[in-house]
Every structure is written in C-alpha cells, then in structure tokens.
C-alpha cells in the first residue's frame, strides 16, 4: 500500500510566488501525521474505498504540457460547449494553457491567475480563498492546497451581466508516470451580477493515470445569479476527488447542474451555504455508471438564516458491476425559520451486480420550516418495457429509451438551450454506447 500523504509531504513543490508558498506551508502543517486510511475509516467514506488512490504513486505533480497543437486536436473532440459560444479557460493537467484559452476577459470580468495575483486582486483572493471550503474540513482540501501550483480567480463586477458563458475545461492527459492534478478556481460574483459557468472535466483517449483533486469555490454576493454546470466525462481510469463550495448572500441565486460518468474512483462533495436571507439554491444532478465504476456524490445544503429555499434532485442509472453512493444532507441551523428545503434521490439499478447506497439526511434545529426528502432504488417498469416491445422495439433499446427518459427529465430544468443540448448529447451517447444489444446492464 502506497502512503499517498506521506510521499506528498516528502516531495514538496518548488518555491513559487510568496503567497502560494505560505499556502503550501499551512497545508503541510494540516497534512502532517495524517493518513488516507484514517480518512477512509470515517463515516464520510463509509461506502467509498480510497484503495485506488493507494495502488499507484500519485504523489507527484504533472510534467510540463505536451505540444499545444496536439492538445487542441484532442480538445476539439472532447471539449464541452462550442468554443465560439463561450469565453474559454483551459487547464491542461492542472496548469493554465494560455494558448488554448481566451486570455482577454469579457468586459466587467477579471481573470487572475493565482501565480500572477498582486495588489487588490491578491487581497480579494486572500480574503475569500478557502473560507467556503474550510467550513467542511477534509484532508483532500488540505492536499489540494499542498499541491497547488496555480489557480484562477474569476471576478464578475457589480451589476455586470455576461453575454456568453465562461467555459472552464480541465483536461488531463496520460503521462509517463501517474500524477496528481491539484486545481482550484475561485469565482466571485459581485452584487447584482449574473453569469453562467460551465466546467468540464475531460481527458484524452489514452488510458489515464491521473488523480484530480479539484476545488471550485463560488462566492455569490447580494442579488447575484449564477448558473453553474459541472460535467465529469473523464476516461474511466482517471481518479477524481473534487469539491464545490458555494456561499450565497442575500437574495443570491445558484442554479447548478452536475453530470458524472463514472470512473475507478470519483467523488464530488458539494456544499451550499445559504448565508443571506432570500437566497435560493437549486441543484440537479445525474450519474450514469457501468462496468466497475464508482461514483460518490456527497451534498450538503446548509441553511444558516431564515427565509431561504433549496431544492435538490439527483438521479442515477447504475449498471454493470458499478457502485453509486449518494449522501444528501439538509441542515437547518437554529433560527433559520421559514425555510423551504427539498431533496430527492432516485436510482435505477439495472444489474444484480451493481450497488446503490443512498442516504438522504435531515438535520433540523428550527420548527417553522418545511423540509422533505425522498430516496428510491428500483428498476424499470416491466409493463413499460413490454409496451415498447409490442411496438417492435427491442428489449435492450426499450430499456435504453426508458433509462434515458428517467434522466433526461432533469434537463427540462436547464434553462439555456445551448447547455441542454450539450448535456443531452452526452447522455444520448452514453446510452447508445452502453445500452446497445450487448449493453453493460445485462
């Protein structure tokens, strides 16, 4: 068994700019004496094994980029939405690629690389970085900082409404030796601003040997409105432990959509903190698993103040020998009266060798609230399959159609056609590939 944290501590990053160095120092202290095995013994990792992380030496960071031309070709095949429809920021193996990105931000927006931050920007970064993530202590947040070479601070200025979405592409490629990608982005929406962020995690076609540890922090000031998409479509050998942390102030609105295709080990922690009255969070998510994949979504919606609303719907189609884990928590803090919170997790289990472990949690410390959660694990309706079969559709195709419908109804919640089309295409492709005649569900 490979001691991931121990080796990471023994291979410190070369000294970079001053403030990143102090971030590394702080993280070193946080990681000292800790073990991945201690983390896996906690309730948070009850259903997910961290063994994959200890099978190879992931303790070093990526080597410099391969040739950008080559990457551009890869990107054009796998990138999220059409590049011309977005402001693009591309990271290759965790490092910012100026060649592949639109370096010039749109009016009213600032893109600041962590390694280049200074003056006013540095003050803003220091004031906010980690303040969201620190509310949920996890060793992987510490390790993210320990490995962080660079990152991106995106600020949308007051009352600015973006014309096009900002697309962030996190690309990993196969390297000679297995490695860690530590990536971080801090997005701040100033009061009254409105933006769309589309994050895609993707990889080239080769068998992957990367471990991505990504943290995305979203800071929504008063009245800000953000649509956030996060799509995981890395090749299935890529490991990923990531997190999204959001702080919502008064009347801020966050509408997020998560989509994940499985991998050897994929885990995403989503925490939404409702800190100002009138804040509203909507989260939709889907996971599609087959083969020996493992996907774990841990979400937590924290209602700190009164009069906030949250709604969360996650759906999964789980086949092959895969395992889906979902843990969705609604936490109503004392005094957070007049809260309206809902959560639903529905799963289709399409194979006897697959497993679903779901735990919707409610933790409530205020009485005048309306909270509800529900979870189901079931299979497709035999009558519905039969109905389609009587119309000349093969059994496999009928199952694919119905499974597609089960997930696709979430897409009705995606207001932007350009996003809806893109996500539909990914889901479509998945079902065509895996639920064909010799599909992975049987």
């Amino acid at each position, binding site marked *: 068994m490979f001691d991931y944290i121990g080796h990471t501590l023994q291979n410190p990053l070369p000294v970079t700019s001053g403030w990143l160095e102090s971030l590394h120092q702080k993280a070193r202290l946080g990681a000292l004496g800790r073990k991945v095995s201690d983390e896996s013994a906690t309730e948070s990792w009850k259903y997910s094994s961290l063994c994959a992380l200890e099978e190879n030496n992931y303790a070093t960071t990526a080597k410099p980029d391969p040739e950008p031309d080559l990457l551009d070709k890869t990107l054009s095949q796998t990138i999220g939405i059409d590049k011309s429809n977005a402001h693009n920021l591309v990271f290759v193996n965790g490092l910012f690629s100026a060649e592949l990105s639109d370096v010039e931000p749109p009016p009213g927006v600032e893109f600041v690389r962590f390694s280049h931050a200074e003056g006013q920007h540095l003050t803003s970064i220091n004031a906010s970085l980690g303040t969201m993530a620190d509310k949920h202590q996890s060793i992987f947040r510490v390790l993210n900082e320990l490995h962080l070479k660079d990152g991106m601070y995106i600020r949308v200025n007051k009352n600015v409404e973006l014309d096009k979405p900002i697309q962030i592409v996190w690309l990993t490629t196969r390297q000679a030796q297995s490695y860690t990608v530590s990536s971080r982005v801090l997005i701040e929406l100033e009061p009254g601003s409105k933006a769309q962020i589309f994050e895609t995690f993707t990889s080239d076609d080769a068998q992957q040997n990367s471990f991505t540890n990504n943290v995305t922090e979203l800071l929504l000031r008063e009245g800000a409105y953000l649509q956030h998409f996060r799509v995981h479509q890395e090749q299935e050998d890529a490991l990923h432990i990531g997190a999204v942390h959001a702080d919502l102030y008064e009347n801020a609105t966050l509408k997020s959509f998560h989509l994940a295709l499985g991998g050897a080990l994929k885990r995403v922690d989503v925490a939404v903190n409702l800190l100002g009255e009138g804040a509203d969070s909507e989260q939709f998510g889907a996971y599609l698993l087959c083969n020996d994949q493992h996907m774990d979504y841990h979400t937590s919606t924290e209602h700190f103040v009164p009069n906030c609303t949250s709604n969360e719907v996650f759906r999964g189609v789980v086949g092959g020998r895969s395992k889906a884990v979902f843990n969705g928590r609604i936490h109503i803090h004392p005094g957070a009266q007049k809260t309206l919170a809902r959560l639903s997790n529905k799963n289709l289990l399409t194979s006897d060798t697959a497993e679903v*472990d779901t735990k*919707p949690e409610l933790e*409530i410390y205020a*009485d005048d609230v309306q909270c*509800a*959660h*529900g979870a*189901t694990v079931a299979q497709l309706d035999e009558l519905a399959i039969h109905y389609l079969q009587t119309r000349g559709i093969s059994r496999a195709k009928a199952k694919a159609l119905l499974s597609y419908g089960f997930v696709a109804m979430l897409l009705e919640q995606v207001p932007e056609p350009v996003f809806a089309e893109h996500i539909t295409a990914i889901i479509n492709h998945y079902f065509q590939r895996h639920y064909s005649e010799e599909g992975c569900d049987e």
Partner: protein
Amino acid sequence: MSKQALNHIINNEYAAGFVTDIESDTLPAGLDEDVIAFISAKKDEPEWLLQWRINAYREWLKMAAPDWAHVNFPKIDFDAISYYSSPKGMSDGPKSLEEVDPELLATYAKLGIPLHEQEALAGVAVDAVFDSVSIATTFRSKLAEAGVIFCSISEAVKQYPELVKKYLGTVVSQADNFYAALNSAVFSDGTFVYIPKDVRCPMELSTYFRINEAKTGQFERTLIIADEGSYVSYLEGCTAPMRDENQLHAAVVELVALNDSEIKYSTVQNWYPGDAAGKGGIYNFVTKRGLAHKNAHISWTQVETGSAITWKYPSVILLGDNSIGEFYSVALTNNYQQADTGSKMIHIGKNTKSTIISKGISAGKSSNAYRGLVKVIPRASGARNYTQCDSLLIGDTCAAHTFPYIESSNSTAVIEHEATTSKVSDEQLYLCQQRGLAAEKAVSMIVNGFCKEVFKELPMEFAVEAGKLLEVSLEGSVG
C-alpha cells in the same frame, strides 16, 4: 395559551416517579468475572451459561462504547454501577403471589399493573420484573393448557434448558455490540416465551419492567420463540423512580419467528426522562432484533416517551423467502431528552417485504433522530421496502433529524424512503380553536392524528395508554 398554563403542563410530574421503600440485596458496584460468577450462582445456572456470560464479558472488554449516535452524554463509569439488585428474600423467586411482598404488589397496583389475576384485564398475562428479578407471572396455568411457555428467563434456564441453549444469542450474538455484550455478561432476568407449533397464543402476553434501586443498571433479556405456524402478541411497559443520577438500562430482546409464524411486539416505554433541567433519567440502550424465517411475520410497534437518552433500533432479519418485517414507532422527546432511534431491515430471502413508519415529535430543548438501515443483498430478489419518517417540531429550540441508510444490491428490489418535517401550525390551531376546542385539546388532537398510523397497530389497551401518555408528556408545549 397563557404562559402559566403552558408551564403547568410542561411541568407535569412524572406519575411513575415514586420509590418503593423495600429492602434489597444489591451487589456492590463494579464488574469483573467474579460478579458474573456471583450472578450466575445466585440464579443457579448451569456451567455452559456461566461460560457463555464470561465469553461475552471478555468480548465486551475489547469493545468501545459506540459514539456515532446523535446524542451527547458524559462517559458512563461502568464500575460505578451495581449489576445485580433484587428485593430481599426474592432471590430464589416467589412460588406464588401469596409469597410476594405486599409492598411490591402495592407498587404494581399504583402503576396500574394488575398482578392479581381476578383483577387483571381480561386476556392479558403479565410478567413483572422488579430491578433484576421477575417477581410474578400471571395466568400461567391457562397458558400451559395451550402449551405456551411464559416465564422468567431464569426459570426457563432451569426448566427448558434445551430451548434456551438452542436459541439464546442466535439473533443477537454475545459480541453483537457494546451494550449487547454487556447485557450478555450480566443479564439478570427477563422474559421467556415459547409458542408451540400451530398454536395461536390465547391471550396477550405482557412484561412490566420497573427499576427501583438507586445506582443499579437493569439488564434484562427477552427471548421469544414462535414455532412454525404460531402467533403471539407481546407487550412491554417500563417505568422507574425519579432520581437525580442517570441509570443505565441495557436490554436485549431476541425474537425467533420460525416458518409461517407471526410475532407482534409492542412497547410503551416510559422510563423516567429526567427533570425539566435535564437532570437524571434513564439511559435506554437497547438491542432488539427479530429473525424471520420463511413466510414469517415480525412486527415491532413502539411508543417511546420516556428515558433521558434512547438508543434503540428494533430490527428484522428477513432470512426466509416471503418473510415480512414491520416497524411502527412514535418517539416523543421533551425538555432535554435525546433519542436516536429507528429500525434496520435486512432483506436476505426472496420476495421479502418491510415497512417502516416512524413518527418523531420533539419539544422543549430535546433532540429526536431517526436512524435506519434498509439493506437488500444480491440474492434478495423481489424485495420491497417502504419507509416513511415524519417529524413534528414543537417550539424553536428542539431538533429533529433523519439519517436513513439505504443499501441495495438487487436490481429487482424496490425501495422507497420519504421524510417530512412540519410543525403544529398556527393555522391548524386557529381552525380548531375557532370551532370551540381549547388549544391544548387541539394540539393533542393534531398530535394524535399525526401518530394515528402507529397507534392503530397497538393492541387496544395499549393504544389508549399511549394516547394518554402523549397527552401528558406533550400537551401544552405549543405556545
């Protein structure tokens, strides 16, 4: 509602909180193998049982008290507890009611538990357990006619050793968990029930548990075996005096439902919950589990209003094909009470079904958590579960939580879970008051309606008692 009226009702005295002044044989505090040998010798137990206890004790020493439940309490000093206490002269067990100390009979009369058969509610046989000892079991001859064995477990060890040896620890093993291991080592008494093949038990069976002595723990063990095709309905009730210190109650209940049999197990738990400031009260750390064989049916119904802390997850292992498990619960917490309770349904056989209906009511500064597990293993095809957990919050200082674990590995299983949280709304109260109902009556009516699904599962006498108990514990907590 006026603040005065509210205080009056909240401060409602715990009616069962008196102490019976009776001389007891109580073992000094502390636990080691000698104490276990003493308990075993006192009960004249066979060697195998002593060894069984010692094995449990050795397992217990290796274990740590579980800390995952959503409850807070200071660490228990297990050496400060006395592990055996019996009313003086009762060590050998009374031969008949005439030999029972009148003071004891008076205690049970005061609690409303009839031990004289002529006064007893028609159709309910009672086993009364006082501290560590079973003091009386009624209607034994009538039950014997039907072949039903209903006696204390100490007596069963002597008279039916094969049955006890065959089934004891088969559902909850000695090393199952920390408190079950402790119970296996020191259990003093409890109830034993055996229903022979194809017999429908002619009356309700009931055990009444009473903790009296200070600084003692009560560790009873109940074993119920329903042989093939039989049926039994069993009720238990519990109370304890009001004392400032916390007392430990760590019971184990094992149910064995053989093919085609049915066991209905109902509990009205009213241990002393501690005073309004959270001082004193019983720590109720109980392991209850049933094993359902082919076509068997096990149903747990509980109304939990007492105890400072409740840690209890009545479970059913659905081993046989077509077996059914049910759990109906009302858990009420007030003042500083804490409850972490729920159920586990383990689906192993094919076409097994389970239902969980849990109603949590929190008031005052209490915390009430539902924690449950529904597990379907790969071979349990056709398994079906429905879970519903509803919480009612009364006042803005209480807490209600839901932690349901759902694990499914079979593609033909259907599992549904839903939970809601609400309060007694001002609109509901206003509507009732407008129609001439006093606020207290209205709350009581709304709460009763909230719990209806569970109450209808209780035998009639218990349903009435449970309704009253809720009224006393809760009424008026709404301002």
